[in-house]
């Protein structure tokens, strides 16, 4: 290869920028207007107004989230404290014989002290050793443990955001996924969570924003529901608070 990878990418970018103008000009001319450079009025942005006013009480949010999550084959536990969450996870790990556990590198999870609680399991903390191939660590894990950044009752969904200390693989590759949801993060509508990304703006968005609404599933073989096709087949939502 004569050119370095960087030079090749630069060449592609130059081509792309030149083509961008032609591409946009073509669209504008087909639409029969001059190139639009000003932000147009968008009177129909987002959900209808009646929907934006809709909100459930905390009790309703818990009930609806639980019903939705159960209906797609997920599991839900309603817990009072993080201490309860610790006990729940340790019990399940013992029950299922989880040997490899990977968790996000967050203080709330460190406080659970799972390492001491589960001396027979190997608990890895995401991205704490730069020499590790972390994707493989997550792929071999029996349990992945994460904390939800947001949750939505109406669709029964949990949102996890990626960061240096929060791997996308931790909620994706392990066989069993444990999601801790602090109750104050449980909202009614999807829009309540989505609008926070508009408010944050481009520069502040993480690379990965993932909404998870239950275990991985497919109905591709004879419409027969299969759970755990690629992602975790067993998913626990632990509502804490």
């Amino acid at each position, binding site marked *: 290869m004569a050119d370095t990878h960087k030079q090749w990418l630069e060449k592609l970018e130059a081509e792309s920028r030149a083509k961008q103008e032609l591409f946009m000009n073509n669209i504008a001319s087909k*639409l029969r207007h001059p190139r639009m450079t000003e932000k147009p009025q*968008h009177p129909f942005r987002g959900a209808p107004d009646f929907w934006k006013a809709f909100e459930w009480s905390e009790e309703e949010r818990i009930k609806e989230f639980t019903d939705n999550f159960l209906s797609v084959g997920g599991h839900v536990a309603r817990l009072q404290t993080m201490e309860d969450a610790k006990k729940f996870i340790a019990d399940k790990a013992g029950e299922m014989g989880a040997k490899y556990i990977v968790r996000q590198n967050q203080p709330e999870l460190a406080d659970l002290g799972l390492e001491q609680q589960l001396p027979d399991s190997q608990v890895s903390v995401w991205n704490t050793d730069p020499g590790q191939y972390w994707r493989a660590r997550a792929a071999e894990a029996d349990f992945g443990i994460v904390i939800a950044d947001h949750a939505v009752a109406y669709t029964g969904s949990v949102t996890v955001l990626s960061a240096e200390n929060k791997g996308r*693989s931790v909620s994706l590759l392990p066989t069993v996924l444990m999601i801790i949801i602090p109750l104050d993060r449980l909202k009614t509508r999807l829009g309540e969570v989505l609008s926070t990304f508009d408010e944050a703006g481009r520069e502040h968005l993480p690379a990965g924003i993932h909404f998870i609404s239950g275990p991985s*599933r497919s109905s591709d073989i004879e419409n027969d529901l299969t759970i755990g096709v690629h*992602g975790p087949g067993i998913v626990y939502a632990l509502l804490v608070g």
Partner: protein
Amino acid sequence: MSTAQKKEKTVKARADLALNDEFLRKAVRFTTERLRNGKKKATAEHGNWEEWRERGRQIRLHTIAHLDYYLNLFVNNARANGVHVHFANTAEEAVKLTLDIAEHANAKSVVKSKSMVSEELHLNHALETIGVEAVETDLGEYIIQLAGEMPSHIVIPAIHKNRYQIAELLSKEAGYTLPPDTTALAGFVRKKLREKFLDAEIGMTGCNFAIAETGSMVLFENEGNARMVSTVPKTQITLMGMERIIPSWSDLEVMATLLPRSATGQKLTMYMSGITGPRREKDADGPDEMHIIIIDNGRSLQLGDPEFQELLNCIRCGACLNACPVYRHIGGHAYGSTYSGPIGAVLTPSLNKNIAEWDDIANASSLCGACYEACPVKIPLHDMLVYLRRRKVESGHGNKLESIGMQGFATIMGNSSRLGGVLRLGKLGQKLVVRSGVIKTKLGPLKGWNTYRVTPSLPKESFREKWDTLDQELKAGLRQMDPSMKQRMEELVQKRERERKEGKGGHGHG
């Protein structure tokens, strides 16, 4: 991609194949029923569906009407996020770009999540030619890739395969016999593809929506394979139709409300992922390098076309397929192209700007409007099918027999003695084919009609022959009304007049 289905040239021929395949017909009917009922239930449960549809339509209309602004904004933001953005006017250009990226990544294998655009480009074949293995990772797509076929449904691509056929295919791949049991088969695929995800240098995805204001791309899926291909490999390539844009994350709420409910009756797919650029410097997963290829491939032909621009509003949910009585009978393969069902019947000729070649798929519809009713963004597909048929005829690609027939009809109907002569000839001629008052022959010009019905024979005396008598009777009747009847009617009119003046109201209309 070469398929057996493609060999048959017309929808009719391909549909005959489908109609003969009892299993396929049952499977398609069962699946479309399941999805259709799922949608009905989900939309009823959610409530105010018409208002959501209208909102979805407005957002799509607005974005497409200002596409140069929003697409440009998306591109600039995606670049600022560190994405390498490319433009492809044609399928060939998109393929060339992909191969170039694959070569520079020294790729031996590419793992792909479901993408209709990729089907449009026939990309797998192109990758093979440079020695790169392309692996479909969506369970259904993986199955049909092993079978060497095309998807038959946008949402459930292997709708036409039963589990015995699937077990046979997967057993061949495994090298040992797998039982025809869904869990066992899916378990094998999970294990097999895990290795592929971790091995592949490139992950390739489609794009359900692209958010202009933040340069993010959004994927909806249930299996987790789209997350896999966008998390594990070093390089990510996303193929994106140029019309996939929505302005903001707030608008995504509307799309996320419409798409899963319309596609499968779900409140939300198991995964909805918003990806904003490659992995951040300190992240330990996500792609190092991310490419988005923005593809025209015939889409801009719809822009500014008052009859077809709304096609670009399509969010690829497949609800029109499930609602279509024709699709439910003949299945996706009969359409002979990437996109099937009502949307395919309009989209394929439009994208290919080749009305002649694809003309007959516009006829694979009964124009009943069920597709419009089902469409979550209210695309008037049934109207478009009519426009397409009209354009086909205008451009001289109409049915030759039909044109000759119409010309003949005009010649005969334009002259009464000619018509009389032809009818007399018909009456003579039909003696050869009439059996107990009807014509059942499947030979000659009546073949198409008589395949499923019978033609009534011509009556002994035609309407035109009866006309003179009818005419005289009518004229006489009007001229000389029976005097007693005339008197009765006059009295009735006078009575009604009196009642009206007295304010009683005549016919009960108050």
